């Protein structure tokens, strides 16, 4: 039953590993925005006497390093473009006639890619941890580790399912890139990728925490920094799980509608 997906996973690993230099190249360049972020926050903290919200300079830098770690683990690269191309060019006909679930197939590929990618990015991350070793603060409680792991898995599920759902729009639209970039912009600014959500006005935070975006990055990082505790932590995890479920429902719904509409262009 699962053998076909573990095979897919294995093939995914091999295919990705071919591009190891490409990935290393990409992740090294990923350090440049981190440098920019560090510079701008250093300038900002030198303009103020106190901290900013609950952050001081050290914890702000640590926040962005953790964002980089979570980003490597959860953010899909190119998956949506490949899925859209499969649909547009009629490749998915091959999946429709096989006893293979397309979503499970894509998840296997996504996981294999993330695994190889995260493994290779250990190189630039080691550099970062070495350079900023003064700011590294590991969690005090041992329990934080498994909860962080759970939260990262759900974050990856949300990120992947959003990408997958957007890509399925290719059943109706010839060009999905505008749509993809609009969704990117929300993920980029509202997930905590560009700045931590908890330095925004409180009323805005309250609203935002009902959207999926903070749970793609900000929330797992908060868990690791032990900034959410007790009741707040469990509610957060429940909302995160709810978003995984809702995005899964949305993708299933779009898939069943899309397949009915599908015309197998060129197939």
């Amino acid at each position, binding site marked *: 039953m699962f053998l076909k997906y573990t095979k897919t996973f294995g093939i995914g690993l091999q295919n990705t590993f071919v*591009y190891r*230099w*490409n*990935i290393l*190249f*990409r992740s090294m*360049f*990923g350090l*440049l*925005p981190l*440098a*920019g972020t560090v*510079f*701008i926050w*250093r*300038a*900002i903290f030198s*303009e*103020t006497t106190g901290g*900013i919200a609950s952050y001081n300079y050290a914890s702000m830098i640590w926040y962005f390093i953790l964002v980089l770690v979570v980003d490597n683990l959860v953010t899909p690269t*190119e998956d949506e473009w490949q899925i859209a191309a499969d649909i547009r060019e009629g490749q998915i006909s091959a999946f429709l006639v096989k006893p293979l679930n397309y979503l499970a197939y894509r998840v296997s590929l996504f996981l294999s890619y993330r695994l190889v990618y995260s493994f290779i990015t250990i190189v630039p991350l080691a550099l970062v941890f070495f350079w900023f070793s003064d700011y590294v603060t590991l969690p005090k409680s041992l329990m934080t580790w498994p909860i962080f792991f759970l939260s990262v898995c759900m974050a990856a599920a949300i990120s992947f399912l959003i990408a997958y759902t957007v890509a399925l729009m290719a059943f109706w639209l010839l*060009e999905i890139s*505008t*749509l993809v*970039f*609009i969704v990117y*912009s*929300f993920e*980029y*600014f*509202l997930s905590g990728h*560009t*700045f931590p959500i908890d*330095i*925004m*006005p409180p009323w805005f935070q309250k609203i935002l925490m009902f959207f999926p975006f903070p749970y793609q990055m900000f929330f797992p990082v908060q868990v690791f920094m032990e900034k959410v505790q007790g009741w707040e932590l469990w509610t957060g995890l429940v909302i995160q799980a709810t978003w995984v479920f809702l995005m899964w429902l949305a993708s299933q719904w779009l898939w069943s509608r899309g397949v009915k509409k599908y015309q197998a262009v060129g197939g």
Partner: protein
Amino acid sequence: MRRYLEIYGIMLRNSLIREMSFKANFLLWIAVEICWFGGQMVFIEVLFQHVQSIGDWTKWQMVLLLGTHQLIGQIFQAFFFVNVANIPELVRTGKMDFMLLLPVDSQFAVSTRQFGLDNVVNGMVSIGIITLSLAKLGLRPETSQVLLFLGTLGFGVAVHYSVMFFLATASFWIVRAQGLFSGYFNTFALGRYPDVVFHGIFKLIFSWIIPIILVANVPSRFLMGSFSGPVFYPLLQLALGACFVLAASRFFWKFALARYTSASS
């Protein structure tokens, strides 16, 4: 030279005809641009809730910098992005052979085939943002300032082009160099920050060797008249930097071509 202009004119016309067949897409690209600007504005707004200024940069000055950064990026993308981004694919499939056979300069041939009309529309959004921030700052730049601004934009476009072209040329060695897209965007993410925040060796590299920090900062400061010293030096620094990276990327291209063995043979 005249022949190149004529060829470019024909390719421009072809691109426009092709783009005009997707009219609805324009509106969507404007929506994309507004979302990204909106996000950046939120970022600046959040920063300035906690500080009055960053160095000598106030909030609306930073918005102007952001608009300028975006405008340069859009001009570059309109003329070159799609073409340069396609180079790895040309190399991978061996279609590069046809480019090399054309009786024009190879760099010209691979860099100028398509023109992105949606980027022109996005550029308009940037100009709107720049005008808005000038109004908020109560500034009315003189003609000479506007001319300096426009001139330095050109150098900025040259820097964008050179960096992207350099990365694309790496695809002669790294097959499927899609990573270079993110390389380009990651590199220029630095360009939207004020020059005063950078320090040390990092500042040295990115303002003297690859002048990314200067690209948007110099024209913005010209437009706002916010240089404290003589304007001649930053102008010269950006001009020399742009010429240097352009020459370096061309040299690298020639170097790579000499080692090109084509695919499938």
